[in-house]
């Protein structure tokens, strides 16, 4: 074993360096970039309305990049480990050394796994450490970010093992297929369990699944020993499995268990995910995710109100909106997909758009049209426009010339702007703030101010009647202060008022800044500090008055209004829908047979064979998770996985095919 390990490390030393450097660059760039994204320096972000959360697009990109890179690294490493052996005719040499074939197989696998762990894991650890050093980055680093990143490493290892097994076995026997499925099983397990948004199940589910994956990896190494004993000593006349069967079986068994595995976090979770939202009038809404089912409503005194079922205002938050270009199309889609999860892409300076949910209207900023447009959340119809001379229910004559004009207009409104304008103002706040602080100097200054205050976690919150509020959360307290407007200096439009800081520090006993906290500003004055995500046990909402005194503490009792698995089960027949849809479309009708295919190019699923299968499997995954707010992000790794599945199978087939000919 030592012989093999030394040999592998020596042979792969250059590849190790390349993988290490690449991973380091990705981690360094993204961890740095994520910090800036948090303070609004980047234009793109993803809004998940159902969780009332804006996720920087870079954060998603980080996860996707890690996934893709790890899979690439695994694939390349697997090929690099095997190809030279066949190309240089080293197999007979290696197998006739007194090391044992089991040791050769296990040694190679162990070396590959170790190399991937070190080269992919070490840069992540280094960047994590750097990020954890307070004030070294603008980024308020979250440990939760590490879970999907770690999962991506395991995913890379799985891809590597897959290539390893395929490459090693000239006879693609059932053992190889079994190994393949095992590898994909791990991948799916990780994808379903740990690539969650950085709030929610992912963190708690991640580590058990990670441990399970490690155990499976170890068992695969042991299995490799056994498999390798059989390597190349099988009768030369035995017929290998046709490649298309392997491809079909592994693809099918990769995709469909994925839908089942996706609900594992819920199955294993003792209670449903719940969410608290505080309305501006102070009432707290405790909801279970998906379908807008409301569990409890509390009043300002913390008394539970009668349970409300069915459509309610918050339902709009879990509506499906995909805002593309142009705006009309986005609204149309909004109307088509009335239920589900919202993922709103926010290109601040592109055509469209930002949406924010209020209790009555939806507001969209359309920089392309230089208008703020209001839509009815129930009927999805356009209500009117906000333009320089006021609100119009019909097509307005005037337009804003610049985004700043809109901000100026809103800021110049009477003392207490109504709720709608508050919402729109929040939109503009983000836009304006990003623009105002877009230079490196401004970001550095802002960051410096934050650091001087010793804050560990920074959140912005909505515009109050008195200005823009920035909330800083540390482990012990909440600091909320207004950004003072400075009209004299266009370049420094908003400044922080140190005197305001002294007045607005509030203890947050019982809560931690590492909890998913949110700040709500109440119409009646003061703040509400609440935990957005509740999974286990009673949680609390803290209400503060305008003087910063803790007004009341509301304990939210634990209950389980519904079992989330039931919500999931109804989506399980979806793959069947896809199959039916494909058959109908292929053999009976040219019309899309199912609403599930809405928006897809029909030609894309007329190509038949594997291409079509992969298309509808991908479609199944998309829709499977499209309706599931908590798992929406898993579609990224799944699609990545799918891509690598196809690509990997092709590469492995080509590799084996050539290898087989060479061996003959």
């Amino acid at each position, binding site marked *: 074993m030592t012989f093999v390990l030394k040999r592998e490390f020596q042979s792969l030393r250059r590849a190790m360096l390349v993988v290490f450097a690449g991973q380091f660059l990705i981690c360094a760039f993204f961890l740095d970039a994520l910090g800036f994204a948090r303070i609004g320096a980047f234009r793109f972000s993803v809004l998940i309305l159902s969780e009332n959360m804006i996720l920087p697009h870079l954060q998603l990109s980080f996860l996707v990049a890690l996934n893709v890179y790890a899979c690439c690294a695994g694939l390349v490493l697997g090929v690099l480990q095997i190809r030279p052996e066949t190309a240089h005719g080293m197999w007979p040499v290696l197998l006739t050394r007194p*090391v044992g074939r089991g040791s050769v197989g296990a040694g190679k696998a162990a070396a590959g796994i170790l190399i991937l762990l070190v080269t992919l894991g070490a840069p992540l650890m280094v960047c994590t450490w750097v990020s954890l050093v307070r004030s070294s980055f603008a980024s308020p680093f979250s440990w939760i970010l590490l879970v999907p990143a770690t999962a991506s490493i395991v995913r890379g290892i799985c891809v590597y093992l897959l290539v390893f097994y395929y490459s090693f076995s000239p006879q693609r026997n059932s053992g190889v297929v079994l190994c393949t499925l095992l590898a994909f099983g791990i991948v799916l397990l990780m994808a379903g369990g740990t690539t969650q948004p950085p709030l929610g199940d992912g963190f708690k589910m991640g580590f058990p699944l990670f441990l399970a994956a490690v155990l499976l990896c170890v068992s695969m190494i042991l299995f490799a020993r056994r498999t390798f004993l059989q390597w190349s000593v099988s009768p*030369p006349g035995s017929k290998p499995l046709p490649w298309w069967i392997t491809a079909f079986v592994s693809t099918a068994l990769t995709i469909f268990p994925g839908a089942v595995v996706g609900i594992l976090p819920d199955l294993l979770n003792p209670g449903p995910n719940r969410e608290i939202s505080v309305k501006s009038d102070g009432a707290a809404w405790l909801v279970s995710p998906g379908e807008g089912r409301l569990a409890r409503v509390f009043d300002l005194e913390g008394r539970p109100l009668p349970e409300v079922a069915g459509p309610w205002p918050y339902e709009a938050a879990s509506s499906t909106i995909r805002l593309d270009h142009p705006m009309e199309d986005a609204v149309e889609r909004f109307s088509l997909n009335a239920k589900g999860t919202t993922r709103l892409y926010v290109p601040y300076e592109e055509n469209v758009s930002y949406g924010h949910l209020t209790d009555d209207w939806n507001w969209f900023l359309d920089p392309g049209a230089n208008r703020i447009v209001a839509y009815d959340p129930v009927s999805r119809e356009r209500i009117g426009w906000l333009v320089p001379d006021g609100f119009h229910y019909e097509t307005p004559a005037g337009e804003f010339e610049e985004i700043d004009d809109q901000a100026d207009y809103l800021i110049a409104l009477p003392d207490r702007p109504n709720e709608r304008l508050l919402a729109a103002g929040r939109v503009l706040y983000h836009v304006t703030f990003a623009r105002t602080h877009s230079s490196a100097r401004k970001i550095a200054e802002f960051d410096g101010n934050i650091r001087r205050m010793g804050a560990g976690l920074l959140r912005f919150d909505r515009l109050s009647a008195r200005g823009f509020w920035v909330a800083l959360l540390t482990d012990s307290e909440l600091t909320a202060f207004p950004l003072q407007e400075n009209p004299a200096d266009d370049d420094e439009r908003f400044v922080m008022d140190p005197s305001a800081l002294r007045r607005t520090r509030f203890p947050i006993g019982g809560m931690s800044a590492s909890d998913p906290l949110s700040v709500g500003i109440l119409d009646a004055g003061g703040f509400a500090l609440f935990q957005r995500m509740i999974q286990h046990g009673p949680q609390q909402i803290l209400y503060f008055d305008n003087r910063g005194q803790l007004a009341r503490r509301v304990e939210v009792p634990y209950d389980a209004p519904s079992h989330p698995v039931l919500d999931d089960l109804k989506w399980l027949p979806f793959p069947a829908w896809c199959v039916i849809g494909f058959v109908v479309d292929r053999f009976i009708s040219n019309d899309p047979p199912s609403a599930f295919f809405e928006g897809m190019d029909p030609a894309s699923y007329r190509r038949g064979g594997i291409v079509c299968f992969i298309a509808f499997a991908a479609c199944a995954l998309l829709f499977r998770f499209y309706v599931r707010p908590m798992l929406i992000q898993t579609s990224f790794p799944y699609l990545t996985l799918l891509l690598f599945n196809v690509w990997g199978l092709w590469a492995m087939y080509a590799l084996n095919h050539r290898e087989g000919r060479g061996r003959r």
Partner: protein
Amino acid sequence: MPDNPPGPVAALEQVTVTVPNKGHPKNILTEVSFSIEPGTIYALLGRNGAGKTTAIHVLLGLLNPTSGQSFAFGRASSELGRDAFRRIGYMPEGHPMDPAFSIRHAARLHRPLYPSWDDAFFSDCLKSFSLREDARPAQLSRGERALAALALCVSARPDFLILDDPTLGLDQIARNLVFGVVLRELADRGCSILLTTHDIFSVAKLADRVGVLRDGSVILDEPLSDILGAVRKYVIPFPARAADIPRIPGVLRAIQSENEWRVVAYCDRAERRLMEYPGVSVHKMNLEELFIAMVEPG
């Protein structure tokens, strides 16, 4: 030295290897049998594609035969383990070496694997072959790489050495060095050697026993000393009773050309019958002539 079971060091018994060939299975080896006795040098000869390397792969357990059995050190080849491979030195065809390792590094890697590794012998070999220890395979010529691979192989002091075309790329001086000095010394120390090569001249000086493969079948398997004295070529001009000649006992090969029969046969068994043909002429043969006569198409 570990105890050797009685009998040959290695043997193939009725080994057949069949591979699929577009629906028409093809025999790479057909009922091949030969054995290597302790302390002897066995030269396995044959044209390209005759099945020499396949036979070695079967012997080493790298390939399972379709039928038949193979053994090494008294164990089935497919069950050869760490202990057996510690006593086997194998240099594959083409002399592959790990591209990432210098000769010194490769030796350092191999040393712990072989209890009988001989550093002094390794150094002597490199010195004799004029090789630098820090050279990497990419910096070596084909011949130098062959010598380096051989040095690594023989320095493990194996009890059984298998060399698959070791002279490929070697100049004549290097060949003499390999066959005349290195292998001879190993054989003198009791090492059994299985050798495949196209260098018949060197084999004639070194080998104890010769096997000839043609189209996957063994057509000759005799001690070299027996062959050179006992086999002769008989040229029989036409007309002759052609059908009978190949069936005469002792005839190894009978090739019909335009106006004559060329017959290779054991003189003690076939000469009396062959001399009955009118105009027959008898020629002594060296190993090279014998090999060509045995494997040439006809």
